[in-house]
């Protein structure tokens, strides 16, 4: 019966019963602790899910986008550039793309207008994102009126609405035919918004981009990996900023925990005194405190993580989506795909449990080294 494991389970048993005996004190600590874990966990899960979403979206993006720059501003690119680029060795295909933005004065919203590569829409009809449909209150077969650059109305029939599963990218989208696009914006002939380039061998992307930059010094080739990296660091920067802001909250929690741990009641001191006088050693009392800490930390950690999971993946992080997502008139309503891995949990552990543990070591020792007679007399 004296095996070390038995000793630990007995001490754990005692720790649980002593925690339950001081319900109100421990409960308040547990609530605050859980809240801290919940907030930071929500943040980490949310950022990770957005990064995942961006990576998924960009997986379909072209290897290389070539934009023309004039005086540091994005300009239209002539189709002749595309012909010369497709002659570069290693380039598989060059697709000129037409897209742009349209500001709707009536509804005060910005739409993204896009011409698809494979002509899924007939002239006169459009496909729209769910956000546009909500904003304009229209459904399939309704008409949508856009104002062209020459101030003439352009009537278009809604042929389809993109499913809400793709809302993160399609919310503000209007897909229209090249003819209608031309009608809308009156682009000079043979000019496109930019060029999408695919490269046969992924390892040659950088070389191809360098060649394009040399051939056309007025263009800027953007690699898919660069876009991905920019999104990643943007989301991480926002997440990091929030963590820095939350550091204040963590700090106040630590002070709270420290205060709770040092403020031993007379009853607790007496209890430790009795334990020591019946033969508990200082190391046993320390172990008792250790198990108490583990129970509180684990409970708070698990409950906080589960709540955060629900908050982020079922309620789309309603509490701080505005800080992290940005805002717009047509805002996509979307459910994030759950991505939680050991890495995020470890980071969370380091950000919450570690400071708590550090804050409670000294109080635990102070409690454990009380001389038994003094403790009982007090």
């Amino acid at each position, binding site marked *: 019966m004296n095996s070390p494991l038995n000793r630990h389970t007995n001490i754990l048993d005692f720790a649980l019963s002593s925690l339950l005996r001081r319900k109100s004190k421990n409960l308040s600590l547990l609530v605050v602790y859980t809240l801290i874990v919940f907030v930071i966990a929500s943040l980490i899960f949310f950022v990770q899910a957005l990064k995942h979403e961006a990576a998924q979206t960009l997986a379909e993006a072209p290897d290389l986008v070539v934009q023309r720059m004039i005086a540091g501003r994005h300009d239209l690119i002539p189709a002749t550039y595309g012909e010369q680029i497709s002659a570069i060795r290693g380039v598989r295909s060059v697709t000129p793309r037409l897209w742009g933005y349209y500001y709707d004065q009536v509804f005060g919203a910005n739409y993204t207008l896009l011409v698809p590569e494979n002509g899924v829409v007939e002239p006169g009809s459009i496909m729209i994102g769910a956000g546009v449909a909500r904003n304009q209150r229209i459904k399939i077969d309704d008409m949508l009126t856009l104002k062209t650059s020459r101030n003439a109305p352009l009537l278009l029939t809604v042929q389809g609405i993109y499913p809400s599963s793709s809302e993160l990218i399609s919310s503000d989208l209007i897909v229209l035919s090249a003819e209608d696009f031309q009608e809308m914006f009156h682009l000079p002939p043979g000019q496109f918004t930019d060029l999408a380039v695919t490269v046969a061998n992924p390892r040659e992307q950088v070389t191809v981009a360098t060649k394009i930059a040399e051939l056309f010094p007025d263009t800027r*080739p953007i*690699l898919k990996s660069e876009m991905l990296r920019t999104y990643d660091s943007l989301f991480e*920067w926002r*997440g990091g900023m929030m963590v820095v802001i939350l550091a204040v909250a963590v700090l106040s929690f630590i002070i709270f925990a420290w205060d709770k741990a040092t403020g031993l009641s007379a009853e607790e001191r007496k209890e430790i005194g009795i334990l020591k006088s019946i033969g508990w050693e200082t190391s046993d009392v*320390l172990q008792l405190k250790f198990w108490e800490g583990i129970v509180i930390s684990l409970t708070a950690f698990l409950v906080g993580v589960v709540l955060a999971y629900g908050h982020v993946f079922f309620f789309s992080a309603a509490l701080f989506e505005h800080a992290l997502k940005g805002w717009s008139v047509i805002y996509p309503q979307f459910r994030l795909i759950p991505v939680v891995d050991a890495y995020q949990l470890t980071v969370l552990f380091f950000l919450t449990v570690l400071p708590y543990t*550090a804050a409670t070591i000294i109080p635990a*020792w102070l409690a454990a080294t009380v001389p038994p007679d003094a403790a009982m007399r007090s």
Partner: protein
Amino acid sequence: MIQHPAILALSIASLLTCFMLVYAAGYGTRILEKWDLQSGSELQLELERRTYLISVILSYTLVFQILSLFLYIFTADNLHSQFTGAMCAAGSLAVNSYGYPVLILKIINCLLAGVWLIVNHVDTRGYDYPLIKTKYGLLNILAPLILLEAVLQFAYFLNLKADVITSCCGSLFSTDKRSIGGEIAGLPSGPMQQAFFGIMALTVVIGVVFYLTGKGGGIFSLFSSLTFVVAAASLVSFICLYFYELPSHHCPFCILQKEYGYVGYALYATLLGGAISGLGVGSLIPFSSHPSLSRVIPAIQRRLTLVTLVLYLLFTLIVTWRMLSTSFTLG
């Protein structure tokens, strides 16, 4: 500096660890100077009470230290997408000159921390604080190393600059282009395989002999450390290749990724655990004649030997299983 939650977590952990270690080392020095078990002075009683605090602080700190090694590699791996040319942790660590020194220091500190925890455990088993001076002497070696690690780690994170698209110019091609593909030159695989399996077999034999007869503990400890070094080199030289099924990819970090079933964690954990226990056996030898420990130490040494043997065998088993089960061969 990249404001990544994991970087903040690691920095906070380092800061806390350093703070606690400096506090502990301060008292450790006082204990080294003033400790006198025969005396009943107030100072001695106070120091005796402090030893509990320091033991607890260090146990927590060193466990965090060991966890932070893994978090560091995790983070470096996670950051690789931010740098041009970086494919995995190998690339992110090479972004500036601090990355690898921090990793090496973390491994050394991890080993030392493990040994310290073993010595501490043995010390608490004796009634008269038998190893107290050794313990705090070791702490005075460990503390500066961990401080140095924290400083270097901070320098590493501070000098990380993500290569992102800026509004003025999209391409980064004109700026300096690093081409670190995680290619670390490996040692020739044939001789390394022989060396790896040879030294592993030797260590196991010596370990079994020590376990059964209690003789040759020093040699076992030495061999288990040697095995650690050889196995780490083999990991780069040939073990990885079997996991990647690529004859040219020597990166020791990619095996930590999901694509390879996180097998790297099992490999690193068994290797580190084995090395720590093996070193622990050796570090206890000088004290085995101590009166209050003469009965405790042999039992602990045997248990540690068993741990080393099991972990090293597990490591070898994973490696051998992969070498046999994959269709990839090194010609």
